[in-house]
């Protein structure tokens, strides 16, 4: 295991990341389009609305992530908060980059 | 001739070790002394087994010393209750005899080795005597025999602190013995007899007197001291810690158990359940004390740095379990107490033997000394692990059977607080056993230790340790005979009379 001090940009490079992102967008659009093309079997009624599943998937993640961002300052602590880290591991704390 | 031998067995169980002691002294050489020791121990173990069977068939075996009929002469009685205790004492003695040779050779100056054997034999004779005698004063005499020899045995420990510990034990033991004597004197004054069965029939008319009440108090306190019942336990940790390993192993497995037996022999047989637990609140007092013992001693055990000391504290906690069972004074409770009395003898004997084997190799018994010994002495360490699991009460070990029957009995008596205490104590036991196991297996050996840290203990020591461990597992897997015997004993005691 070696760790040269390289600092490549995040996610390969921003440019390369665009291809899968675009693909995902295309799939999403296709799935919205599919709403018109199949027979729905709703259990309750409200789950038969247009784009219900897509909306739930999208909104859930947005809300949950924002919630988690709120939560972190409240419960986040230093890695050796409980003082149980092994000597030697506890000292690693200062080094090592973090994201953003 | 054979029938005559069978008839004489109750006396022989005491006489053989008693006479083997002077023979050992005369033999003087270590190997000869050891041979006599082994012979005597296995002989009485065999006889104890035969007596156990005989008591099971006949209900009770009685023997009149000197041919004098019971109320006047000394009577030896073996009933289902003490037959089990007798089996424990002699069985542990027999295994101790295998263990003793290497352990004594390593820890005691060679010229004094024979003395350890002689004193052990006297101690065995005393304990066996306490167990089977049917005479109150005779019980005191045997108690003194076993006590005096154990003071001397503890004083022979390898460290200088052994002397002080033995001295403290001597003071406490003497006080306990004196209290017992005072108590026996008081009941003798009131009834004019010393035979237990006779006492039981003569006490009720005078039971309302303060003298008899005081007698019960003196006897219970005196014997509780010997049994290391909280808060009279304070002599025990030092005594067990500084005694030679073989002595710790033998005494921890037998001496306190026999003392507990004696307490309840007096309470149940002589004074009677209704008197001690009905008229007088002895049961409540003992239950409170045993509950405190379970928790306080377990906590103390967690903070020990010496394994022998840790085990000693755990013994005090376990005495709480035993007494709690007996003090319920229900058939289930008594049989649970008796079961744990036996099982704990087996568990603690095995654990002290394993620690003794580690001590044999390391010349130390602190937890730090044990670091990494799981690799260096795999067989002994494995024995300790199994013994430790039994102490915690893990299924398929004897300790689990004890825990199960004790909990059942406590539930039946609606003692929910004690249930909680017992569960808490068994959680605490995980911590202290876990500390030792962690040191044995998950810590590296210190670098500076090189030459003498490898290789197993001698065969004899391993054999004895594993025999006790095997007994633990056997009981854990097939407890029906033991439970049956304990239930018979409890039924006999609740029925009253010897």
């Amino acid at each position, binding site marked *: 295991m070696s760790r040269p001090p390289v600092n490549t940009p995040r996610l390969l490079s921003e440019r390369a990341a665009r291809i899968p992102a675009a693909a995902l967008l295309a799939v999403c659009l296709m799935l919205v389009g599919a709403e018109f093309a199949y027979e729905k079997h709703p259990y309750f009624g409200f789950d038969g609305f247009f784009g219900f599943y897509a909306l739930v998937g999208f909104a859930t993640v947005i809300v949950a992530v924002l919630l988690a961002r709120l939560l972190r300052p409240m419960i986040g602590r230093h890695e050796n908060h409980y003082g149980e880290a092994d000597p030697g591991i506890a000292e690693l704390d200062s080094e090592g980059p973090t994201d953003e | 001739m054979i029938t005559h031998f069978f008839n004489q067995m109750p*006396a022989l169980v005491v006489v053989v070790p008693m006479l083997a002691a002077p023979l050992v*002294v005369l033999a003087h050489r270590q190997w000869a002394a050891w041979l006599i020791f082994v012979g005597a121990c296995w002989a009485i173990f065999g006889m104890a087994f035969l007596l156990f069977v005989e008591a099971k068939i006949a209900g009770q075996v009685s023997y009149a010393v000197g*041919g004098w009929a019971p109320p006047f002469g000394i009577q030896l009685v073996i009933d289902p209750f003490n037959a089990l205790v007798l089996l424990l004492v002699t069985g542990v003695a027999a295994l101790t005899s295998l263990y003793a040779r290497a352990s004594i050779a390593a820890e005691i100056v060679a010229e004094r080795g024979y003395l350890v054997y002689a004193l052990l034999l006297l101690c065995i004779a005393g304990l066996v005597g306490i167990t089977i005698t049917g005479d109150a004063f005779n019980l005191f005499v045997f108690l003194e025999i076993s006590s005096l020899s154990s003071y001397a045995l503890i004083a022979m420990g390898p460290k200088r602190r052994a002397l002080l510990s033995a001295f403290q034990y001597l003071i406490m033991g003497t006080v306990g013995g004196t209290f017992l004597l005072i108590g026996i004197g008081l009941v003798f004054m009131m009834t004019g007899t010393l035979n237990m069965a006779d006492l039981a029939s003569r006490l009720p008319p005078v039971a309302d007197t303060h003298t008899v009440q005081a007698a019960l108090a003196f006897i219970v306190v005196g014997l509780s001291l010997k049994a290391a019942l909280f808060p009279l336990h304070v002599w025990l940790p030092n005594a067990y810690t500084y005694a030679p390993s073989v002595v710790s192993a033998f005494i921890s497995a037998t001496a306190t158990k026999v003392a507990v037996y004696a307490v309840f022999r007096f309470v149940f047989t002589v004074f009677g359940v209704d008197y001690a637990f009905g008229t007088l609140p002895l049961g409540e007092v003992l239950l409170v004390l045993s509950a405190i013992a379970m928790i306080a001693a377990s906590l103390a055990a967690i903070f020990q740095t010496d394994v022998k000391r840790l085990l000693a504290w755990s013994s005090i906690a376990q005495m709480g379990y035993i007494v709690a069972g007996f003090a319920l004074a229900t058939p289930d409770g008594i049989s649970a107490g008796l079961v744990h009395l036996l099982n704990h003898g087996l568990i603690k004997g095995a654990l002290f033997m394993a620690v003794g084997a580690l001590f044999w190799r390391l010349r130390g018994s602190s937890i730090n000394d044990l670091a990494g010994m799981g690799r260096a002495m795999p067989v002994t360490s494995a024995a300790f692990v199994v013994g430790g699991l039994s102490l915690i009460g893990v299924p398929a070990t004897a300790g689990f059977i004890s825990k199960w029957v004790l909990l059942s009995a406590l539930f039946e008596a609606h003692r929910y607080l004690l249930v909680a205490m017992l569960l808490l104590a068994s959680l605490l036991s995980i911590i202290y056993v876990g500390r030792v196991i962690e040191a044995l297996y998950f810590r590296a050996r210190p670098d500076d230790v090189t030459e003498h840290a490898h290789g197993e203990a001698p065969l004899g020591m391993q054999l004895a340790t594993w025999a006790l461990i095997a007994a633990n597992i056997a009981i854990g897997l097939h407890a029906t005979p033991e439970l049956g015997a304990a239930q018979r004993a409890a039924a006999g005691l609740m029925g009253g009379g010897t």
Partner: protein
Amino acid sequence: MREHTVLRIVTQLVVAPILIFALYVQFHGEYSPGGGFQAGVIFASAIVLYGLIFGVEAARRAIPPTALRIGAALGLLVFGGTGVATMLLGGNFLEYDVLLPKPEKGQHYGLIIIELGVGITVASVMIAIFYVFAGRGRHRDEDEPA
């Protein structure tokens, strides 16, 4: 104590009578006040006196520690052996009646024998204890019963 002539002379005179008195107490034990325990103590007291006046070394020469060890053991053996003998003869432990054809005789002799055993053991142990305490810090005999 070498300069106390009176004490030395008196001791020399008294030791022998004490020993004889011990034997008297010993053998009259079964039907008059006395017995093995008392006799053993009296016997030991003679040796203790001797040791105090003439020194422990002298006492040790008179009665060596090895003898004490053997004595203590033998006494116990005599006691227990009698019991075993009664068993072998068909009685219970210490049932003296069976020792001799006549039960009373048997009782008589049986008691004398076991008292003798007790006496020997008590005397030996007493003297041994005296040796241990008196010899503390000065002399260490490997053979002494501690």
